[in-house]
């Protein structure tokens, strides 16, 4: 439920450029702690771009560059050079489930092991992460089977478990259900709701109704038709945004009356 909550990420006048083209302009809002914040908007409005600023995934794109500040617990994400620490704290789940080509156990243990954690701790982590990802019951008796033998929805939960294993604080999800069928989607949504007790979750979704279903707060973004850059139109508690949005563009979008 929305309500009083600390701020986890403070986005202030964030602009983003791919080379010379601007993808985001002056995005400012606060992402509350231990809540689910959804980012919605039409294709190409910069949702993914915004999300990828939060764990500096954009560093992989040559020529990409951010301007402004994004504070996490007071530290600026945009200018930090401690990328490995940042990414450990800010986990990410992608559109297509991407299990590593190894056993279920090794998938979850992969991160902790490479980070040099000791064996007993890793073993505990495998179990606790799988439990937190609501997958333990389904896989506890076949931890050594290849992860690719799982169904799509299970794979996505495995990926979430893998990400939980390195103890993140924030979990970013970029359309985590768009490759899944409705049943698996509901499971992931329920999982998100549960995880929001302990983690700050930011989810990008194409599916407005998904945002409506699971999130506590919703950010609506739109491509500015003149500047051809993405903008934040409205950020509000989800219930407010879907019942009585303040901006007519939000209303037009959520009622499907665009264009």
């Amino acid at each position, binding site marked *: 439920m929305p309500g009083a909550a600390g701020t986890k990420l403070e986005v202030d006048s964030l602009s983003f450029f791919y080379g010379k083209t601007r993808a985001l302009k002056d995005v400012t809002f606060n992402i509350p702690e231990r809540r689910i914040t959804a980012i919605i908007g039409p294709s190409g409005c910069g949702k993914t771009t915004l999300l990828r600023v939060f764990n500096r995934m954009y560093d992989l794109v040559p020529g990409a560059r951010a301007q402004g500040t994004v504070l996490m617990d007071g530290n600026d994400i945009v200018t930090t050079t401690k990328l490995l620490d940042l990414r450990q704290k800010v986990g990410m789940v992608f559109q297509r489930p991407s299990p590593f080509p190894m056993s279920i156990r090794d998938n979850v243990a992969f991160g902790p092991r490479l980070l040099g954690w000791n064996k007993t701790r890793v073993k505990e982590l495998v179990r606790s992460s799988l439990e937190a990802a609501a997958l333990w019951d389904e896989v506890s008796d076949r931890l050594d089977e290849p992860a690719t033998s799982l169904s799509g929805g299970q794979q996505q939960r495995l990926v979430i478990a893998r990400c939980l294993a390195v103890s993140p604080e924030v979990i970013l999800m970029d359309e985590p259900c768009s490759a899944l069928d409705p049943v698996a989607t509901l499971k992931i949504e329920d999982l998100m709701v549960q995880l929001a007790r302990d983690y700050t979750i930011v989810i990008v979704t194409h599916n407005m109704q998904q945002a409506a279903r699971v999130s506590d707060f919703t950010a609506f973004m739109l491509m500015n038709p003149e500047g051809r850059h993405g903008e934040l139109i409205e950020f509000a508690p989800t219930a407010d945004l879907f019942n*009585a949005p303040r901006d007519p563009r939000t209303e037009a979008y959520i*009622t499907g*009356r665009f264009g």
Partner: protein
Amino acid sequence: MPRLTFERELASLRESVVRMGTVVEAQIEASLDALRRRDGASAEKVRSQDQYLNELFKQIREQIFMVIATQQPVARDLRRLMGIQYIATELERMGDYAVRIARMTKTLVGLPDKPLRAEFGLMGDLSIGQVHDILEALIDENEAHAREVAGRDNEIDRLYHRVFDELITEMGTGKPDPDGALRAVTLLLVAHNLERIADRVTNVAEDIVFLETGQVVELG
């Protein structure tokens, strides 16, 4: 032309609810007319007409149910749907008052004729006027008009209290006359129901404000 189906359904719902309003208005008018003319047959007709109103109400409910199930409306769209449902509920209730007035009329027809107090005419005209105007506000989606109509509540209230006091006094001072007592009580109930109609109009006004702006207000 986005969401053809939804718009079509919404238009049909608006039409239904406006039809309901018109029928309710006609029912109230007919019941008061029957009262004035002491016409039992007309009163009976009001009662049977109410079935139609109930039917319409059920249909609207079901259609709204279906539209929600199939069109997943949000925000304004959903407000418009739910607003229509709220209004339909109020209209159905107003229809009940008309029926009760008609029932009272039938009781009165069985009693000796006596001229009707002027207040009944006034109250009737006022309440019919309110119903009529609130329907217009609904059709025009005119929030301000709705608020204005709701404000006219006081006049009817005043008339009702006057009628009530007068009838009680009349009963208390009159000679023993069972017919007279029944007649007075019955008329009192008619006035009571007219006053209730005005209350419902206020609620409809609130619903119109909600439907148009999303604000929940108290106009009572």
